[in-house]
């Protein structure tokens, strides 16, 4: 609408006289106004952002720092289940696309202070190791009927009130002597992640979560030990109920390295004011307004939407390049999207399965985590741009683990220059 009128104005300028040159500049600046409007609105929105808490990974201080009675936030290794008895089972443990049991990615201890029932609250994220499943999962997450969708990334939330059957009501002392009130359900010997309710038929003491893990453990060292274990199986199985004071040993080598997640507020941007840039750059600053050719230059070198969002993503990350998690639980909060394509709209997000209230953004996982995990960089190895987790706004109560929603954004492989 305005573009047509601007073109008419351009047609009017045949010979630039001195008077008309000024008008030309003004009109050129008006063109500048239209272009800049979009950028400025983005900047205004950024100013009203909610405070974000960042998560960084670190090696745990002690071997017992990441046990469940310490209520940790951790990445990699085995999950420190909050509710040790009512674990997810059956279809919730496996990737819907390939059938492999899911691997633990990270857990975030995020209690809600307003509600009594969420005095303890942890969100767990699991995903399938296969990149093929992740690519297929992209199609699934766009589907609207989420009850029937098959995902390879699953999120579970668990919450407990302060007085509960599993932990004491006093805070843990932060040393080795902390114990939970009761040992939890036994876990799989291979992955240490899921409930081990299936036994090895031979020795009856090794527990597994699924047929696949039993087969893997058999091939990777259980076969010679099985005989010995079956002989000693008259003794109560001590390896699974160790009272929860020592870290569980798992047989799988493909688990990701274990880290603790420490949190910090995102610091204010360090606007390093240009000390004397005004003096040095005066010669370069020209007084002429912007013209069309510069716009075309900007178009190709400033980038399209995808590149712009990537550039602002990188700028934000650059303040703290080691961050792996961005936490901001609020209805107004917007995740920091690396790409402009592949973002969900309000309609794409489902409602909570259990209580029907809408979901709100809680946190997002960044790809720096892959670097810390030492993931290989092949064609088929895992790679994502961001995993955004949405949880029930009301944080509905209930026993056990509730499934929440994860949105994965993969990086597009578009070339840089047009």
């Amino acid at each position, binding site marked *: 609408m305005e573009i047509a009128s601007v073109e008419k104005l351009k047609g009017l300028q045949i010979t630039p006289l001195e008077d008309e040159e000024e008008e030309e500049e003004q009109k050129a600046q008006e063109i*500048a*106004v239209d272009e*800049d409007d979009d950028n400025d609105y983005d900047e205004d929105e950024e100013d009203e952002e909610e405070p974000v*808490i960042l*998560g*960084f990974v670190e090696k745990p201080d002690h071997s017992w720092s990441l046990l469940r009675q*310490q*209520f940790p*936030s951790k990445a990699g290794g085995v999950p420190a289940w909050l509710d040790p008895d009512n674990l997810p089972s059956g279809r919730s443990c496996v990737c819907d696309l390939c059938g492999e049991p899911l691997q633990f990615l990270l857990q975030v*201890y*995020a*209690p809600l*202070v307003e509600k009594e029932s969420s*005095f303890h609250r942890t969100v767990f994220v699991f995903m399938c190791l296969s990149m093929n499943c992740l690519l297929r999962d992209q199609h699934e997450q766009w589907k609207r009927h989420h009850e029937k969708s098959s995902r390879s990334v699953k999120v579970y939330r668990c919450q407990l009130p*302060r007085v509960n059957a599993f932990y004491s009501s006093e*805070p*843990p002392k*932060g040393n080795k002597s902390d114990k939970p009130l009761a040992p939890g359900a036994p876990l799989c010997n291979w992955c240490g992640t899921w409930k081990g309710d299936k036994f090895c038929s031979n020795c009856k003491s090794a527990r597994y979560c699924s047929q696949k893990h039993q087969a893997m453990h058999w091939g990777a060292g259980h076969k010679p030990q099985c005989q010995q274990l079956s002989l000693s199986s008259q003794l109560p199985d001590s390896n699974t109920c160790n009272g929860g004071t020592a870290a569980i040993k798992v047989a799988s080598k493909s688990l990701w390295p274990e880290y603790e997640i*420490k*949190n910090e*507020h995102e*610091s204010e941007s*360090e606007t*390093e004011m*240009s000390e004397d840039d*005004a003096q040095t*750059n005066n010669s370069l*600053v020209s*007084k002429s*307004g*912007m*013209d*069309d*050719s*510069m716009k*075309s*230059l*900007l178009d*190709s070198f*400033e*980038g399209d939407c995808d590149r712009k969002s*990537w*550039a602002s993503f990188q700028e934000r*990350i650059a303040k703290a*390049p*080691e961050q792996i998690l961005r*936490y901001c*639980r609020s209805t107004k909060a917007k995740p920091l999207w690396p790409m402009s394509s592949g973002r969900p709209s309000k309609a794409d997000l489902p409602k909570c399965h259990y209580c029907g209230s809408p979901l709100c953004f809680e946190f997002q996982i960044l*790809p*720096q985590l892959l*670097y*810390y995990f030492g993931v290989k*960089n*092949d*064609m088929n*190895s895992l*790679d994502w*741009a961001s995993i955004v987790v949405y949880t029930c706004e009301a944080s509905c109560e209930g026993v056990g683990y509730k499934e929440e929603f994860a949105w994965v954004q993969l990086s597009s492989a578009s070339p*840089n*220059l047009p």
Partner: protein
Amino acid sequence: MAERGGERGAFRRGFGGGGGRSDRGRGRRRGRKEEEEKWVPVTKLGRLVKAGKITSLEQIYLHSLPIKEHQIVDLLVGPSLKDEVMKITPVQKQTRAGQRTRFKAFVVVGDGNGHVGLGVKCSKEVATAIRGAIILAKLSIIPVRRGYWGNKIGKPHTVPCKVTGKCGSVTVRMVPAPRGAGIVAARVPKKVLQFAGIEDVFTSSRGSTKTLGNFVKATFDCLLKTYGFLTPDFWRETRFSKSPFQEYWDLLGKPTKALLLDDVENANA
């Protein structure tokens, strides 16, 4: 580790209630230098570069992989990469309370040995605009092919053939020149060509070269085409090599770097 036991809030300092005050001492404002060294790659290519599996930009160009992190270029090209601000223009937006000025910076980067990049960034402060433009320039870095005018003695010093680039109404034509001719061009493309590492060239331009944007973009387009021109050196059938992502599969064993750089290096010979 501070713990808040109490009626409100949970035991450990979890996410959400109030993060902050960490033992790591991140609250301290560190100098920029330290942050730049601690680059944690975000893309797969970045992780490969940081691990040292990719040693030159040519490997990335060969497979047309998009470079999304400027630290990749920093690591691969290194300290020989120079940058220069070509122009800073103020642009204004009309608001109710007057005018809001922002600065647009045009920056050219190059190592003087076959790689140039151009970046444009607008920001409220000049320094931020320049920094952003340098990053964008590093991301848009392209290889430039050089050749000989006559005898193939010494290193290539000029464009391999007559090439022309166009943007808007501006066309820039580059013609190979003998050694010692120097860069015969206007002030603006001369800078770009110096960063590219071309020592001698004759140029001819047409159109409204007053418009700096189009002029620079036309020379850039011209340099882009140097590797696009089919010369008899490229007549040999291409031996396709595995991309860096496939190369480092455990199944395939050690890659042969000679194979990858073969086509690129032969072209320069």
